[in-house]
């Protein structure tokens, strides 16, 4: 019979539009996908039903790629795996056909598209209780936050020339356009700003939960203020004009939101760091229920190898990839190469120097993240293949340092040391070292801030952005393998301050233009 051709999915896990969103719980599942978009690579854990096609699934995971581009091209980390495009990250020699550039670009834009679709679907929600509808509006705010976060990554990495889509954009095959003024324009900056303003406003229909009231893994207004602060802090890079005062306003809100420093520095990076009240917004992982070969599985496994005992880091086996550069190690040492700042969590039985890129043991291993709880118990996955540790995307210590930086930018010096000292005291930095740090700050506050951000926030995915903001990414600073040679090059081409739009994307979307200098 001809009518047989009208089929609908019979798979228990797949449904058509009419059967997907029926009650509030369904929408919660849709929202969870947006957060999970940062954490996992698809709908089957750890792999099997990927979000992105035609790529190695584990390597296509959002956090893994974002972290790689924020850390591997910097003084904080090196990776010499022979995977296609991988060495180019630590060498800063990528080009528009680099596969990892492509994956990162797809991840960011896919995340935006997911949010757009969910906001569209939310707009059609009609649930009976007003309480449910209130939650629907809140979800919409959360979806807009996630979208703003992805757009911020897109802006930070690729600039204003990326496709600009919202819930108004139709799904199909029509290539979307970038903002009218293209690379260097302000539209995406303005959009992120206005979105975040709206979802944090107490007058808005769609607003996030109040500061410091969200579940761990969920965004509230503090997360949005933090994101807004990051946007403002880097405004000069993004749109050519500074927004220090605006940054201070939103940072003040973050600092006043009631978060507090964790008792011990390392507790922010352990399997039970969901208990940390310092973390403002994490990407949540779970060794049993949130499995991926990217995310924290990657971050912990890739940092373990060589002569290290995998079990000590709560994993069944290391992958031997990411380790420190000597420039990072030095920031924790005195002139006799003795480590004096306890925040550096290194495995030092490997070489301190970095001589060959593929050799994992050339460079101290970094043991900052562990799948072990603060009490020393391993994570919940009995096989120790997947990690419980959350990724601390935003935490209070970062806000403290940002605030100090804003103060310096506005006033030329750092006058309020109390918050920075609280970080030092919490970590057990000896008083004499604290004095040395302050002395250095009085000579060159910018250099001090950049170094201090490395000491406090190394391997937390901020470094590339920081180096670009301080003008030290493509010039005036050298570290091993920068520019390709083992000894590094202080200066590399300016175009590396942003990533190129992938070549495949320029073919698929004729509306896009390659970023300048690429």
């Amino acid at each position, binding site marked *: 019979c001809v009518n047989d051709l009208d089929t609908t999915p019979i798979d228990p896990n797949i449904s058509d539009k009419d059967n*997907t969103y029926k009650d509030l719980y369904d929408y919660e599942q849709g929202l969870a996908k947006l957060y999970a978009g940062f954490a996992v690579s698809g709908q089957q854990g750890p792999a099997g039903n990927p979000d992105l096609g035609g790529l190695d699934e584990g390597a296509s995971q959002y956090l893994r790629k974002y972290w790689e581009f924020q850390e591997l091209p910097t003084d904080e980390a090196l990776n010499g795996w022979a995977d296609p495009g991988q060495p180019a990250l630590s060498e800063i020699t990528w080009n528009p056909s680099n596969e990892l550039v492509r994956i990162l670009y797809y991840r960011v834009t896919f995340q935006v598209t997911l949010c757009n679709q969910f906001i569209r679907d939310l707009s059609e929600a009609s649930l009976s209780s007003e309480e449910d509808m209130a939650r629907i509006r809140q979800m919409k705010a959360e979806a807009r936050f996630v979208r703003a976060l992805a757009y911020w990554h897109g802006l930070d990495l690729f600039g204003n020339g990326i496709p600009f889509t919202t819930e108004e954009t139709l799904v199909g095959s029509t290539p979307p356009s970038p903002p009218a003024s293209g690379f260097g324009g302000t539209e995406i900056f303005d959009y992120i700003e206005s979105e975040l303003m709206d979802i944090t406003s107490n007058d808005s229909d769609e607003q996030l939960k109040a500061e410091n009231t969200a579940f761990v*893994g969920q965004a509230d207004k503090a997360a949005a203020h933090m994101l807004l602060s990051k946007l403002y802090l880097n405004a000069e890079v993004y749109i050519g004009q500074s927004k220090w005062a605006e940054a201070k306003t939103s940072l003040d809100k973050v600092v006043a939101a009631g978060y507090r420093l964790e008792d011990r520095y390392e507790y922010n990076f352990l399997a039970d760091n969901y208990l940390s009240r310092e973390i403002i917004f994490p990407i949540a992982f779970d060794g049993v229920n949130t499995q991926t070969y990217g995310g924290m599985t990657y971050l912990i496994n890739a940092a373990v190898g060589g002569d290290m005992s995998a079990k000590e880091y709560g994993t069944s*086996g290391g992958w031997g990839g990411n380790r420190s550069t000597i420039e990072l190690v030095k920031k924790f040492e005195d002139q006799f190469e003795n480590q004096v700042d306890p925040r550096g969590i290194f495995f030092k039985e490997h070489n301190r120097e970095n001589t060959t890129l593929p050799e994992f043991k050339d460079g101290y291993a970094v043991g900052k993240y562990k799948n072990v709880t603060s009490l020393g118990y391993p994570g919940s996955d009995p096989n120790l293949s997947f990690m419980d540790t959350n990724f601390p995307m935003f935490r209070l210590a970062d806000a403290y340092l940002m605030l100090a930086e804003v103060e310096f930018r506005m006033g030329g010096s750092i006058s309020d040391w109390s918050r920075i000292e609280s970080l030092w005291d919490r970590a057990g930095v000896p008083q004499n070292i604290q004095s040395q740090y302050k002395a250095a700050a009085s000579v060159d506050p910018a250099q001090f801030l950049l170094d201090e951000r490395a000491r406090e926030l190394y391997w937390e995915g901020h470094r590339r952005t920081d180096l670009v903001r301080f003008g030290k990414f493509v010039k005036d600073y050298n570290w091993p393998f920068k520019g390709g040679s083992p000894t590094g090059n202080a200066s590399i081409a300016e175009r590396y301050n942003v990533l190129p739009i992938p070549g495949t994307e320029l073919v698929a979307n004729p509306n896009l233009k390659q970023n300048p200098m690429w």
Partner: protein
Amino acid sequence: QATWYQGTVVGQSDGLPIPGVNVLIKGTSKGTVTDFDGKFSLDANAGDVLVMSFVGYQTQEVKLSNQTQLSISLAEDMMGLEEIVVIGYGEVKKKDLTGSVEAISTADFNAGPISSPQDLITGKIAGVNITSAGGAPGSAQQIRIRAGSSLNASNDPLIIIDGFPIDNSTIAGMRNPLNSVNPNDIESFTVLKDASATAIYGSRASNGVIIITTKKGTKGNLKVDYSGNVSVNTPTKTVDVLDADQYRQVIEQQYGRDHAAYQTLGNSNTNWQEEVLRTSISTDHNISLSGTVGEKTILPYRASVGYNQNNGILETSSLERITANLNLSPKFFDDHLAVNLNAKGMNVKNRFADTGALGSAIAFDPTQSVYDSNMGRFGGYTTWVDGDGNPITIAPSNPVAMLHQTENTSDVNRFIGNAQFDYRLHFLPDLRFNLNVGMDYANGTGSTINPTTAAWQYNVQDPTQGGYYTEYDQTQTNKLLDFYTQYVKEVPSLKSKFDVMGGYSWQHFKTEQNGFDSNFARSTDDEYYTERPYAFEHYLVSFFGRFNYTFDEKYLLTATLRYDGTSKFGKENRWGLFPSVAMAWNVDKESFLVNSNSISQLKLRAGWGVTGQQDIGSNYGFMPTYVESDVRSQYVYYDPNTGRMMYRTIRPDGYDENLKWEETTTYNVGIDYGFFNDKIYGKIDAYYRETNDMLSEVPVASGSNLTNMLFTNVGSMVNKGIEFSLNTKIVESQDLNIHLGGNVTYNHSEITKLTLVDDPDNDGSILTGGIQGGTGNMVQIHSVGYAPSSFYLYEQVYDDNGKPIEGAYVDRNGDGKIDDEDRYIAGSSVPKWIAGLNFMVNYKRWTLSGSGHGSFGQYVYNNVASQNTFYGNMNVSGFNSNRMTDVTEVGFNDAQYLSDHYLEKGSFFRMDNIMLSYDFEEFWNGKVKARVFATVNNAFVISSYDGLDPEIPNGIDNNVYPRPRSYMLGVNLSF
């Protein structure tokens, strides 16, 4: 005055009696049929003419004299001009064919231990390339007819078994969908190659059609056939790796005696490949009963049972198959109603061996022993452990353990049954109706079990909770209903014959699967247990028609039309119209040739047609769908007051609402020729195939859809080629016959477009061909101007001694740096030429025959070598790995996966089988006939390829299950 005539009919070449020959007194309806011994007797008059006819033999007339004892020998109709060929929805005399169609029946099948139907015709048909995935029992087989016409949709031909088009997707637990048919039950293969032949199957015909017909009941008394054989299978070749002594030297050179690499060396000398490979024995038995119930031909029947025990040459792998086949073909109402009932049942029990063990056997340190008494917690198998005594997860697993500690078994039952009713109207016998209803039901269950001691499933926290247990249960149910009506009218006054057919077809495909993963203890606790259910279905609905017109037996015209609907596309696009037209001219029937001595057969053919394609993985690619995540891919919030809150997530999937048919247009011209009374005969065909609106998975503009890769209609591809086949009967005599045949095909495949919009700067090339080693390395590309999946690599630079210089590649674009832009298309994985060869020498009762096939002009990427010919990482994280002996010649320090050094010419010729057989005198007062035979399968391969075997689907050589050489002894008995 009638006389009692008695006679015996035998075959001219073999002298064996032919049962079932129709013996008819010319001009009357009076006649009889020869019995099992080829004997007949009937009343006739001297002067009558007896007409003897039998399929496969030339019809012969004998004028009766006073001689009442007759001895008649029928000449085999090698040319088979009167042979009936099964085509789509009907059958046709071979001489009336207009399309490119080739039929192969029992006598021409390949010999030897054959467990897959595809093996019967490997190398036999021009333009048909059959490649097994490897030498595993029941391994998958890739069939390409005139190369693939599609990029990402299926390139498999449509396969029809006794009128039932089967689903090409494999059943869980079975790798070769055709394995459900016992090759011994197959009567003939018909391969439809050009669109004029295939277009009647419309949307599924772009890659050709293979029609398999199984044996039916014979006329006469009960006939019992038994065939059985035993074969010994041996590995032919292993990868050259460093042996223990060489390995110790290399480790010492690379690391020195003080290094952990040297310190961890063992004292053994283990050849790991020998440890995982074995010589195996397989056996195959078939028995069939056929005949006719009743005095007249009321109920012809054939029933058969087959048993095949196939043991692989990789330890633990085996296949055990039982098949049962029943065919009843009764006729009713004076033959007006012909019923054809087919029932095929099959049970296959597989045990699969992990071919990853082959990779581990190459990589595992040869100085280590297989077993280690200190490794009791890993079942006694030597295992790489870290300082904590736990297995090193990235180290190679012990290959012997991988095989013996993995119990990957399946149990598949399949039933294909259909009933065809063919009714000719009593008052208008020219008009017939044909109804075909059928069902293909398959159920595959299976499990993979690793004990808690399996090192790669070891639970470091609680060893009792380790191991692995997964189970699946899949059911596929495909239903069919076909109905067509046909009207055939000969109008002698117009010298014309009309044949019109029209019909309707409905088919439903449904797959349901359930399964779970857990640990060995089959714990259902959250952290160990995952359920994985899924289900999908699709429908095809079609209307079709065919018109044949023949004028004067010389000029033939065929036109077909099919209108197909599929549930895989949206309402606006789901219907497609697929026409074809073909003409043929039987030149040999023209007056100027009809008496020619030299030219015995000459036919010219030309055809055009359009076929479609809808076979993409997704059933709902045109509509918005949402997929829920499994329990391992949830998002977990933490509420400080209530604890954890987990959500399975919902993802909207990408879709293209305009998804539509891929269309392939085929032009074909051909010549059928025969010389000297068909002592030499064959075919020449030339084809041009263009596929448009290809169903391709291409990158879409970010933000435009809910995916980065979308199945959509983009691009074009052209396949063109020439096929040539030649069969000769070099010697034909009473005692000695020599036949020699062969075929050659030239094919050129080229992608002509890959983007929606033309862009001079970029043709939309897509990387493909993932390899093992590293993460995400791909060595092939779909690119405009080249064959699909062409190799895309860097051009290696060599020093004066011909040694590759590590990391040095030719700067092909001359921009002074080596980057992605310097990769080039280094060759194609699609062969330019394919060829088949077969011979038969028969002397009295001895017959020596053989066949082989080859492919030429394609390249193979040696992934085994690229993973194992560098010095780096021979010791990492506490374990050692071995390398191939070539490492000393190549000498790279790090893997160079993208170097064209690893791309090799893949041309080869394989002698598939050589058989020697002897036909015995009849035993037991002539009641039993016997034939014994010995064969060698995979006798030899001629190739310059350095790896184990150049014959690899898609051209990337890695962990291919080695094809064994098999020696077989067999017997056929008939009584």
